[in-house]
């Protein structure tokens, strides 16, 4: 007898999607100066959700000017205690409209509503809450007795956690007294625009937050704008390097949160079931569209067969499909472009000699989908062990000694995250000392908290988001 899940779709009716969306500049929504628009689609159905304004140079100029004026006239001179109360208001409205945000995020991004509802949206609200509390306590952040805001922040965010990344960027910047021009990703603009509406509802002074939707050219115009004092970028390492070059010599401040190739290291004494759950969460959370994903499984040779077998058993139970179904584990790939990239890198894994496995997993006829995939027999030189796939694809490698695990884990130009699974506390800390990565998860993976700093070593970028340390990126101390 087989037991199946009944459909459990979250209601789409909780959110109203307009046919068209404008840019949010100086407290008002309006079209791009040249009237251009682009569509945003639901990646699970390829249905066009809305037409969104495409910001050009003139719009960037206007938004930066609005942010500058707001910084000089309103937000900069405002006491921290008053800034705090605005941020608390935003946090509260986010909590109140949480379900709306979750459904909109899943529609625009393709991620399971279980994740947008339980992770993205509550964490976004928590970030505003946490940094609201810093706005009137900056002198206690350990950065100096009288830290000052930098001015206007230009912030470019990715499509994998659209609302959460907006919160990670805006909350610390605003708490520190900066004003912001935020450029959400081309494929996921809608929740940032809803957040702009929340800013209106909180009576945030015009120009303190501006949202410019658009594509790569919009982002390039923003980060290279001479009126921007600080640039914060989350996205690919290639674009991060371009931004670094564009800002070289300007003296403008920059933080980068870039790619990763996280190693998830499982020792022979690790509790196997927990480790398997952690491996699944590490690489299949959010379809693997996670810069800190545990995309390389390093498993101790003596337990490799057992762990991989159990992992495959577990993967066979994952449910792929409608992101709005509350039982869905794996949603849609965010775009055709990303699906092509995942497919190409996986094909390279085949060509280089790794063994590909996926559970039996029918894919919907429309939309962008990729089944959970495990490559075994992967060598360190393979592209699937070196390059960020940013999809639900796990590469399995083995090791014999802790030293070998460290060497292999650090054998990457990245350094964002790593996981360690072992019952031995001293070994966790020994490993953590040696792993060259900004976040180490021990017997857990992909945990995030506003109080916890996040960011990378080496080519995963520099600067930290979250925690007391996250304020440093937005203060002159």
């Amino acid at each position: 007898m087989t037991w199946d899940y009944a459909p459990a779709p979250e209601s789409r009716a909780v959110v109203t999607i307009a046919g068209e969306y404008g840019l949010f500049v100086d407290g008002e929504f309006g079209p791009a100066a040249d009237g251009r628009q682009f569509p945003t689609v639901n990646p699970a159905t390829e249905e066009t959700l809305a037409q969104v304004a495409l910001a050009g140079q003139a719009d960037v100029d206007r938004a930066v000017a609005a942010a500058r004026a707001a910084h000089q006239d309103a937000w900069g001179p405002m006491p921290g205690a008053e800034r705090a109360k605005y941020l608390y208001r935003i946090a509260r409205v986010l909590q109140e409209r949480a379900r709306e945000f979750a459904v909109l995020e899943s529609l625009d991004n393709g991620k399971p509503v279980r994740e947008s509802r339980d992770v993205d949206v509550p964490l976004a609200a928590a970030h505003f809450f946490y940094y609201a509390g810093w706005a009137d306590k900056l002198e206690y952040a350990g950065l100096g007795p009288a830290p000052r805001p930098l001015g206007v922040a230009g912030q470019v965010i990715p499509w994998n956690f659209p609302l959460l990344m907006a919160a990670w960027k805006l909350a610390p910047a605003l708490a520190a007294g900066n004003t912001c021009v935020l450029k959400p990703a081309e494929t996921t603009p809608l929740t940032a625009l809803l957040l702009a509406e929340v800013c209106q509802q909180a009576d945030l002074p015009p120009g303190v937050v501006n949202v410019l939707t658009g594509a790569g050219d919009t982002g390039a115009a923003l980060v290279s704008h001479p009126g921007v004092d600080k640039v914060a970028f989350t996205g690919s390492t290639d674009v991060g390097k371009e931004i670094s070059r564009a800002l070289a010599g300007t003296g403008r401040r920059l933080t980068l949160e870039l790619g990763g190739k996280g190693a998830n290291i499982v020792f022979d004494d690790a509790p196997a079931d927990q480790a398997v759950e952690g491996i699944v969460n590490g690489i299949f959370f959010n379809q693997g569209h996670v810069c800190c994903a545990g995309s390389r499984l390093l498993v101790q040779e003596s337990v490799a067969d057992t762990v991989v077998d159990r992992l495959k058993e577990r993967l066979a139970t994952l449910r792929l499909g409608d992101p709005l179904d509350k039982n869905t584990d794996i949603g849609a790939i965010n775009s055709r472009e990303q699906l092509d990239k995942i497919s190409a890198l996986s094909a390279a894994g085949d060509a280089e000699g790794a063994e590909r496995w996926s559970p039996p997993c029918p894919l919907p006829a429309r939309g962008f989908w990729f089944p959970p995939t495990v490559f075994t027999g992967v060598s360190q030189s393979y592209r699937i062990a070196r390059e960020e796939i940013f999809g639900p694809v796990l590469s399995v490698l083995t090791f014999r000694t802790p030293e070998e695990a460290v060497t292999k884990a650090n054998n990457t130009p990245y350094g964002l995250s790593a996981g360690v699974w072992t019952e031995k506390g001293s070994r966790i800390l020994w490993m953590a000392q040696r792993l060259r990565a900004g976040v180490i998860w021990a017997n857990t993976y992909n945990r995030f908290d506003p109080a916890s700093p996040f960011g990378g070593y080496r080519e995963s970028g520099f600067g930290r988001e979250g925690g007391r340390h996250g304020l440093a990126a937005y203060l002159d101390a």
Partner: protein
Amino acid sequence: MPDRAGPRRPARARRPPRAAAAAPAGPAGGRAPAPPRLGVRKTYKLFIGGAFPRSESGRSYPVTGADGTLLAHAARASRKDARDAVTAARAAFAAWSGATAYNRGQVLYRVAELLDGRAAQFTETSVRNEGLSAAEADRAVAAAIDRWVWYAGWPDKIAQVAGAANPVAGPYFNFSVPEPAGVVAVVAPAGSGLLGLVSVLAPVIASGNTAVVVASEAYPLAAVTLAEVLATSDVPAGVVNVLTGLAAELAPVLAGHMDVNAIDLTGVGVSGRGELERLAAGNVKRVFAADEDWAAPPGPRRMLAFTEIKTVWHPVGI
């Protein structure tokens, strides 16, 4: 608007004669004008374990306005009430201190939201009880609400400011975190009904302690109204317990109580602190007292005064 003043308030007392004078015709002239509505007064009681009992002793004491008019008969808490309050605070400690810092911050922020909704009532109480001008009372109440917001932001930051990873000379990971001391007794400042009270109470519970507060003896009305706010917020019962009465009677009971971990004697005059400190030594209480300008921005010292630093050693090795 809660608790409109009683008949002893001069303006209200004058009203009935005026109303009578305005109706000269009486029944013969047609309809008599409706008599002015009589206010419903509030009974000011204690706040212990989330409930509002009177003092078990049955005692009360008169609370008067700046002009000497009687405002209320507040409960005069007894030794037994103080002990009951400590029991309630102890019972609430495990859950409150064990809640996540984020949760405690959310709960405290919610209190600020409710305080804001009661601002007019607090202002009126300050005017009547403390004799502040309306503008002074407005400022004090606004400062009290903003101070509560300030402290609401601290629970998930205090460990980041006061904790440390300690670079010991050996293969150990060593870190220190502040933890709440436990049940803290607070003698609230005598001269500031709401702002002074908030300034000493909020830091105690923001850092995860539970509190037994002795309200200002002369200005207890705001404290009871604050208790009503706490009772309808998400603050669990027993986290804050409010006693009204005579500080000289209650402070020694709390200072000598063996299940109180720390005491804030700010509301006790300097000359009275020595004897209470001697009592507090009986179970090695942490004692804190600092006379402050309540209008000035506070630092984190009141929170840190009621925390213990815990240090953890863990070996590092394969």
